């Protein structure tokens, strides 16, 4: 009875991921091997961290377009500091400084976004769309459009190393997800965020400082983008203004497939993590199967559409009750 109950309590996304993973292991030639699984796990990390950050803003009924764009800016700026061709010659200090600057850049743009949304009461999609353009522009101005290469070997081996099948960068990504999960489930900020996302007016009346809550989540989302930048730079061993250019769809896809309501107030970060894994796995498996690229996009689109429709039905049902 208890097994039945606990099976029932598992969210749909876990079933989807589990079923798709097992089917792929059995039927997709080349998928059931060490290198393919490691590669899949590595590919998921950046999307996972970015989606965790944006998840918070979606819970609040907002969005953060800046997140994917920050991937480009942080990798080119951080990359130029860390690079062996940089002023610090790719030393340990260069790596430390580069990482700090990347995190500060992410958090800095989070502060700008949070401040604008809270102080000027601007819709988040307008604010973050504007900062996204600003960030893209800055990345191109900073590099003149060219890529940043020459990462030191130690940094590269961190980005591509692993313990058995678990890449180091996945450990960082999972740590970020765990921190956000704890923040959402065990802290006051988390409870306030759900309350503000469900009904901002009621939250304000009940004494929750909605401004502070909203400000903090944009800063955390920016910080997540900075961490994703560090992971991306270590993994790709280069910084490019092109990074993240088509990633926003996958970020939102991960969040929606994970069952987070785009209207805010409902959703678990662990489900978003599984959503990111599912989106990456679908792309990767279909690639291995030589499915044409545009077909992959179509399939991903269909899956997101189905997930969003299911959420709408769920919301209507709960409202009716």
């Amino acid at each position, binding site marked *: 009875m208890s097994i039945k109950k606990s099976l*029932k309590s598992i969210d*749909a996304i876990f*079933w*989807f991921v589990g*079923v*798709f993973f097992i*089917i*792929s292991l059995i*039927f*997709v*030639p*080349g*998928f059931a*091997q060490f*290198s*393919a699984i490691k*590669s899949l796990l590595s*590919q998921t990390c*950046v999307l996972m961290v970015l989606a965790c950050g944006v998840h918070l803003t979606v819970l609040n009924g907002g969005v953060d377009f800046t997140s994917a764009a920050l991937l480009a800016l942080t990798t080119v700026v951080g990359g130029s500091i860390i690079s062996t061709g940089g002023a610090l010659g790719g030393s340990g200090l260069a790596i430390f400084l580069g990482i700090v600057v990347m995190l500060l850049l992410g958090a800095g743009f989070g502060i700008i976004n949070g401040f604008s949304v809270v102080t000027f009461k601007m819709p988040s999609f307008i604010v973050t769309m504007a900062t996204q353009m600003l960030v893209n522009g800055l990345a*191109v101005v900073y590099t*003149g*459009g*060219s*890529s940043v*290469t*020459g990462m030191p070997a130690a940094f*590269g081996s961190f980005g*591509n190393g692993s313990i058995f099948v678990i890449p180091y960068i996945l450990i960082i990504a999972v740590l970020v997800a765990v921190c956000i999960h704890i923040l959402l489930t065990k802290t006051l900020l988390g409870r306030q965020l759900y309350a503000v996302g469900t009904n901002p007016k009621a939250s304000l009346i009940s004494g929750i400082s909605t401004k502070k809550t909203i400000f903090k989540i944009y800063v955390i989302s920016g910080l997540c983008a900075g961490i994703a930048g560090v992971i*991306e730079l270590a*993994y*790709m*061993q*280069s910084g*490019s*203004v*092109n*990074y*993240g*250019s*088509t*990633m926003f769809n996958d970020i939102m896809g991960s969040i929606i497939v994970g069952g987070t309501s785009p209207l805010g107030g409902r959703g678990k970060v662990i489900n978003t993590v599984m959503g990111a894994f599912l989106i990456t796995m679908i*792309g*990767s*498996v*279909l*690639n*291995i*199967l*030589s*499915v*044409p*690229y*545009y077909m992959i996009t179509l*399939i991903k689109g269909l899956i997101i559409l189905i997930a969003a429709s299911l959420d709408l039905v769920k919301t209507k049902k709960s409202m009716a009750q």
Partner: protein
Amino acid sequence: MKNKAVRRTLSILAVSAMMLGMVGCSGGSSGGDDASKESGSGDSGKTIGISMCAIESQMWAEYQESMHKACDDAGVKYTESIAENDVQKQNQQIEDFISQGVDAIIIAPADGDAVVSAIQKCNDAGIPVIMANRAAGEGAEVFATISSDNKEMVKREIQYVAENAPEGTKYKCLELVGSLTDVNAIARQEGFEEAIAEYPDMFELAATVPTEWKGDLALTGVQNAFASDDDINFIFNPSDALLPSIQSGLQQLGKYEKVGEDGHVTLVTFDGAADAVTAIREGYVDVVSVQDATEQGKLCVQAALDAIDGKEASDYTDPGFEVSTENCDTEYADFEGY
């Protein structure tokens, strides 16, 4: 309660069936879909992975078709991915090729530097890499690079214009630039600027417009450049993919005139697409430098086969050729572009 459980089980079964269907449909793709084909005769049992940056231009479409045909002719399977000019996606797709266990990978990179990490993984996996049209950055080992002599080709075009210009002609130039992460775009820009510097009395650079290889940016770039300087009478276009936007911009400005007519804006372009060659025959475009995409595609597959067979590597630089209003109906009467 029971109904709910049944519905839940059914939905999971339905999703499983859908996923199984996806896997099943695509699994037996040999000869069936666009992305993976197997030649009917002389199957060597080898597979080449083709990683395309994008196929938005006629040049890349021809490149792709030529590689497909060469694979079919050689009796090798190929599998292909398209990265939509997203370097991150291209890296992932190359890693998926490694998982697939292909025997060689041809990469037409969106960014030669950013693809180095993926090439290193190919090196580690012992899979030879052939670079198509764009060279890789430093730090990775490639078996061969098949590319065009971009700089020299552009220089020959400018030389053609300079030699055919009436005495005392002065050109105010609008220079369009492709993506700054593309080594070819940089080489063409450098080639153009070095070439016009050789004729300082004839050419003056009035404006430089970055386009990121996007037609809409080229169109607004042309409109803005003419708005700020109406005397511009020369446009250097680094890719035929941008030509329709330039033509549209000039038409809107009432400046799309034939060679020799009053108000003609000299148009120098690059690639050799059918649109450009047609426009040259109609007299609107002056000259195009043609990179032989058909030959380059064939050579990429040949290099991949050589790599698989353990033969010696050899790079190839396509010298290109120029088709102009002078020679389009004589020397290159049979050339239609692609």
